[in-house]
């Protein structure tokens, strides 16, 4: 069995972001890390590998410039077997349409992939679209917002998952190969071990170009163009603190305010 985990690098979620007049986003000296959502996908791949006696091969891939190595290294340190970085000059302007095309080409080139795992979304661009787009490109079953893999049967070529929807959990059975988009709650990602970190330092990180994966540069082009990035309007002032002799009086004053705001 061959499991591929798709990942990317992001600024740390606690980073203070600034944006200059040209729309360049800066996160100061905050580190570049593996997209936190992707750790759930990596963990799930490793749990499957462990459940199946270590047989499945887990490959972590990332489409990105050199900074993407941070994400790949973290995944190798957690326990993935192999890593591949995919990048070419023409990839820089790709949106989810182009990214999904590139990832699908790379996965198709591997030829033997049974399961592709994703995090819920990237915490920077926050689209959460690539998993389902890769599934459509490859013709794999698209299973997103998965909070539990209830059953995985490599011999019977089937997978059963619980998907988190607004009204509850939808239980879906699909044939392999499948794309699974994970969500928080599916597991608790492990920390890399000391041995894992050493392994990640020495591991090889092959780079696949557009030519390597047979990508047509015209298809990498974006559907969506980002026009402008700017900070949200600042909230004016701070909270009106309601003070009164008693808690009961403060509560009544607050209710008056909320009635005046017409929100209750």
């Amino acid at each position, binding site marked *: 069995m061959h499991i591929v985990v798709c990942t990317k690098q992001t600024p740390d*979620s*606690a980073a203070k972001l600034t944006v200059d007049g040209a729309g360049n*986003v800066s996160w100061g000296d905050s580190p570049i890390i593996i997209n936190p959502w992707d750790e759930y996908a990596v963990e799930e791949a490793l749990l499957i590998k462990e459940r199946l006696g270590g047989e499945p091969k887990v490959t972590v891939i990332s489409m990105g410039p050199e900074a993407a190595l941070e994400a790949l290294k973290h995944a190798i340190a957690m326990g993935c077997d192999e890593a591949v970085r995919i990048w070419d000059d023409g990839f820089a302007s790709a*949106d*989810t*349409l182009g990214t*999904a095309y590139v990832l699908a080409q790379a996965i198709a080139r591997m030829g033997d992939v049974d399961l592709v795992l994703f995090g819920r979304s990237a915490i920077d*661009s*926050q*689209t959460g*679209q690539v998993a*389902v*787009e890769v599934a*459509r490109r490859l013709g794999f*079953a*698209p*299973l*997103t917002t998965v*909070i539990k893999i209830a059953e995985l049967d490599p011999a019977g070529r089937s997978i*059963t998952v619980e*998907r*988190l*929807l*607004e*009204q*509850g*959990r*939808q*239980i*879906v*059975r*699909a044939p392999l190969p499948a794309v699974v988009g994970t969500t*928080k*709650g599916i597991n608790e990602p492990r920390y890399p071990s000391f041995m894992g970190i050493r392994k990640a330092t020495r591991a090889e990180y092959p780079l696949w170009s557009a030519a390597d994966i047979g990508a047509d540069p015209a298809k990498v082009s*974006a*559907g*969506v163009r*980002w*026009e402008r*990035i*700017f*900070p*949200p309007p600042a*909230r004016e002032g*701070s*909270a009106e*603190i*309601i003070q009164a002799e008693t*808690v*009961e009086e*403060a*509560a*009544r004053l*607050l*209710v008056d*305010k*909320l009635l005046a*705001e017409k*929100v*209750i």
Partner: protein
Amino acid sequence: MSNDIFVWIEQFRGQPAGPSWEAIGTARRLCQQTGGKVCACLFGQGVAGLAQEAIAYGADKVFLADDATLADFRVEPYAALLAGLAREHQPAVILLGATTRGRDLGPAVAADLETGCVADCTALEFMDGQLVATRPIYAGKLLCTCTVPEKRPAIFTTRARAFPKPTPDASRSGEVITVPPALSEEQIPSKVVGFQESEGGVNLADAAIIVSGGRGVGGPEGFAPVRELAGVLKAAVGASRAAVDAGWIPYEHQVGQTGKTVSPDLYIACGISGAIQHQAGMRTAKVIVAINKDPEAPIFQLAHYGIVGDLFKVVPALTAALKERLG
């Protein structure tokens, strides 16, 4: 290509999703500028009754596919059908509510049609003939504007409650066009084998009022006063990551960067300090109330109203005051 706008009407067991009507209203507003038609795409089983409702909310036309293969939402039959209708009728734009299903279906159709899909928009306006979407990025720490400059149809998913819900007008008339499903059951790999409804059936994304508890509630039983307040307000119960990670309440309730993003009319944060990751999920609420014993808590920077005090005293007092006033 036409000027028409397709709007996917999401329903679960015949219950329409609020963001679909918000999207219909947005499509109506945009079509008034372009002269296009609002075409509702309604798929399901036994959902024909919703076609008139879609027209009342602003649709000119409804493409209705009513079939057993469409009873449950699945990407394969829904995307094949919506992409097929788009190929046939060439709309300029497709709008979907940015619900879990909408955020599956929008990009799936975008991949099928090789076009762009802008996720989770909070505003949509025409500028120089292009539809410009505004959307939060980096957990709402920044905003960006996006267009789909060349490819058509341009697809957008619209965030729940970011767009006004139109008032239905039962006197409106429109055309209902019945269409067949695109795939037979044999052609659909995924099978829905069950559904577990969530306890309480609370849908944070749709909720007009949310009462949330954080680290300050101290334990699972600390959510009792939070739930009572929510009960009086008919509100959904939310939680901060700290409360979820401590195991006091299930993940389904989590609001914030690693949970749900919500935009209620009223958000009451009880015992939540207001870490930037939590703010990311609720900062667009119309009115934010913070109840916290720490006057320095960052939540007071974001909140409109605050009470500094012990939530176990303030929250029950607020519940009592509301009961008194709301009857």
